[in-house]
C-alpha cells in the first residue's frame, strides 16, 4: 500500500515536471517549426475527417436529393402485388389530417412509351425515336409545394394546372443529357422544347408538347416524364382516383418515424407501403453509402498512420538532437518518466493545436460553405458530412496516435545510457 502510494506520488511529480518542461520547450522552441508541425497536424485532421465526409457526402447529397425531389420525408407507395393504392381518396384524407404534414403530392404512375419524330418517320421498318418511361401524373401545385420540383427545371417551364397538352421530360430520357446508346437502353434524340411527342399508355395515345426538362440527379425523377394527373388518369381510366404513390413533406422538426407510425396505425399499412425517406432509398444507394464509408475509413486510417509517423519523426529528431540534455537531466536525477511525459505533452500540444485549428476550419468554414455550395458531382450534389460524434471519435483517435507516436521515440532516447547521452556517444 505504502509502495503504491509512493509510486503514485512519484508519477504525479513526474507528470507536473513533464508538463513544466514541455511548456518551456514549446514556448522557447523555433516558432516556424512549431507552426509547421501544427499545420501538418491540421492537414492530417482534415484529411481524416474531410475526405471521409466528402465521400459520404456524395451519397448523402444523393439521398437528400431523393428525399427532397422524389419521396419527401415519408413515402407511401403501392404494395408489391398491387398496381395502385386501394381506397386512395380516404388515405389522402387521413394524410391531410395529420398535424405534422406540411404538404403532400399524390402521383399516378404508368409505364408507357414516348415517341418523337413520328411524323417524319418514312418507313415502319425505320427505328422509331422513342423511349420507354414511367409516366407520372401529378398535380403541379401539390408537387411543387412538396418537392420543389420546379427548381430542377433546366430547360423550359414547369407544368401549370391547365397544361393538359404539355409534358415535362426527365433529362435521362434525352440523349442530349444521357449520351448512351445500346440495345437495352434508348433515349430520345434531338427533342427540343416545343416539340411534339406522342405518349402511349395502356393502349391509349396522346400527343403532347414538350414544356420543360427536369434534371435533379435522382434517377427516380430524371427517368420519368410528367403530365397532369387528370391527363394520365383519363388515359389509364383510373376513375376511382386511386394513386400509386404519395410523397409527404413534413413540418420542420417533425419526426418521420412518428408520422409513419401514425399512418400505419390508421390502417393504411394494409393497402400501401409506408416508409421513411431512408427506408425508401434504393438498395444500391445504401450499399454505395456503406462502401464509401469503408473507403473513407481506409483513407482516414492511412492519414492516421501518416500523422503518427510525422509526429514520431518530429519527436525523434527533437529527442535525438537533445540527447545530451536528456542525459544531463537524467544525470542530475530527473526521472525517465518525467522526461518521457514532457515529450508526450509536446506531441499532445501539437495534436490539440492542430486539431483545434482543423475544427475551426471544418465547422467554421468548410461545412457551412460546402453545404451552401455543394460540390457538383455527376450524380449528386456532394455535401460535407461531419457529424459531431464521428468527428470527435477521430479527434480521439488522432490524439491517441499522437501520444503513442510521441512517447515511443522519447522512450527510445531516454532509455539510452545516461553517460553515453551526456558524452554524445
Amino acid at each position, binding site marked *: 500500500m505504502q509502495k503504491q502510494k509512493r509510486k503514485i506520488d512519484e508519477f504525479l*511529480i513526474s507528470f507536473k515536471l513533464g508538463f513544466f518542461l514541455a511548456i518551456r520547450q514549446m514556448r522557447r*522552441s523555433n516558432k516556424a517549426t512549431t507552426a509547421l508541425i501544427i499545420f501538418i497536424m491540421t492537414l492530417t485532421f482534415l484529411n481524416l475527417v474531410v475526405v471521409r465526409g466528402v465521400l459520404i457526402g456524395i451519397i448523402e447529397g444523393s439521398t437528400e436529393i431523393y428525399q427532397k425531389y422524389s419521396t419527401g420525408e415519408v413515402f407511401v407507395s403501392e404494395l408489391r402485388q398491387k398496381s395502385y393504392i386501394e381506397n386512395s381518396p380516404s388515405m389522402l384524407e387521413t394524410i391531410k389530417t395529420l398535424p405534422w404534414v406540411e404538404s403532400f403530392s399524390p402521383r399516378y404512375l404508368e409505364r408507357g412509351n414516348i415517341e418523337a419524330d413520328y411524323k417524319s418517320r418514312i418507313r415502319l421498318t425505320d427505328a422509331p425515336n422513342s423511349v420507354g418511361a414511367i409516366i407520372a401524373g401529378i398535380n403541379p401545385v401539390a408537387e411543387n409545394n412538396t418537392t420543389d420540383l420546379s427548381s430542377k427545371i433546366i430547360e423550359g417551364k414547369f407544368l401549370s394546372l391547365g397544361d393538359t397538352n404539355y409534358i415535362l421530360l426527365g433529362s435521362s430520357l434525352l440523349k442530349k443529357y444521357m449520351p448512351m446508346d445500346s440495345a437495352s437502353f434508348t433515349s430520345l434524340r434531338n427533342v427540343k422544347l416545343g416539340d411534339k411527342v406522342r405518349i402511349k399508355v395502356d393502349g391509349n395515345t396522346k400527343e403532347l408538347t414538350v414544356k420543360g426538362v427536369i434534371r435533379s440527379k435522382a434517377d427516380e425523377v430524371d427517368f420519368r416524364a410528367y403530365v397532369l394527373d387528370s391527363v394520365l388518369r383519363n388515359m389509364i381510366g383510373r376513375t376511382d382516383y386511386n394513386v400509386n404513390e404519395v410523397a409527404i413533406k413534413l413540418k420542420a422538426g417533425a419526426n418521420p418515424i412518428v408520422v409513419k407510425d401514425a399512418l400505419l396505425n390508421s390502417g393504411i399499412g394494409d393497402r400501401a407501403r409506408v416508409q421513411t425517406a431512408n427506408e425508401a432509398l434504393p438498395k444500391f444507394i445504401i450499399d454505395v453509402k456503406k462502401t464509401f464509408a469503408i473507403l473513407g475509413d481506409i483513407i482516414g486510417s492511412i492519414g492516421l498512420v501518416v500523422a503518427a509517423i510525422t509526429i514520431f519523426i518530429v519527436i525523434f529528431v527533437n529527442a535525438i538532437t537533445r540527447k545530451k540534455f536528456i542525459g544531463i537531466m*537524467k*544525470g542530475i536525477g530527473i526521472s525517465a518518466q518525467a522526461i518521457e511525459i514532457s515529450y508526450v505533452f509536446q506531441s499532445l500540444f501539437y495534436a490539440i493545436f492542430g486539431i483545434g485549428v482543423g475544427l475551426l476550419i471544418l465547422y467554421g468554414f468548410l461545412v457551412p460553405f460546402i453545404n451552401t455550395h455543394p460540390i457538383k458531382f455527376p450524380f449528386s450534389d456532394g455535401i460535407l458530412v461531419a457529424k459531431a460524434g464521428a468527428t470527435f471519435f477521430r479527434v480521439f483517435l488522432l490524439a491517441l496516435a499522437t501520444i503513442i507516436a510521441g512517447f515511443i521515440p522519447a522512450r527510445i532516447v531516454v532509455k539510452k545510457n545516461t553517460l553515453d547521452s551526456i558524452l554524445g556517444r
Partner: protein
Amino acid sequence: MSKIIEVKNLTKSFKTGDKELVVLNNMSFEIEEGQFFSVTGRSGSGKSTLLYQLGLLDHPNSGEIIINGIKVSALGNEERTKFRLKELGYVFQDYALVPELTAIENAAIPLLMQGFGKKEAYQKAEKALHRAGLTDRLESLPNQLSGGEQQRISIARAIAHDPKIIFADEPTANLDSETANQVMQTFSELNSGGQTIVMVTHESEYARLTRRAIKLGDGVIVADGKPENVI
C-alpha cells in the same frame, strides 16, 4: 570526520576492438565528509572515468562504491537516479544547462523533481544562485549569459537541494582565469560551510586550492595526500 565515500577494488575497463583497456585498476581509497577532494592526472589517466563511477553515472566492472554507508554500486538504475537526485550534485565542464530553461528554472528542476512546490523550489533555487554568486539575470536563458554566469547556474543547480557531495568535472576548463578563480572561490566557500566536493581537474593551480588530492596514472593512484605534495 566520518567517511562519506569508500571505494574498494574498483575496476573499470572498456573494450576497444579486440583489446580490453583497463582505465581504473583495482583502485581503493576513502573520502571523508566535508573534504574538498581533487582528482588530477594527465589526459587519459582515468580522472573523469573515476568521477563517473563515484557519481553513479556509470557502472564499474567490479569493486564497490559505498556512499554515506550505502553500497551504491549495487543499486539498480532507478535507485541510482533517485540517489543522484537526493544525495549528489553535479557541475559539468560545459555547464550542461537545459537551454530552454531560465537560470532560476535550471536551478529549480532537481527541487521540482524532489516534489517541492514551485514557489518553494524557486525560493531555494534563488538562494542557491545567490550562494553561487549570481544575483541578477535569474530570468535569462543560458545563451544570454556568459560562460562564468552559466557555470554559476550549474553550481547553483548542484547545491540547491543540499546534496551530500558535489561532483565537479573540470569546472574551470572553459573559463577565463578570472572567472575560474571566482568559481574556485565559490567552491572553497561551500567547502568551508561543510560541503563535500570531489573535483576532477588537470589544472594544478586549482587542484592546489583543494584540501586533498589524488593523482592517477595508468589506472592506479600514483599519489595521494596534500595537493602541494601530490602535484
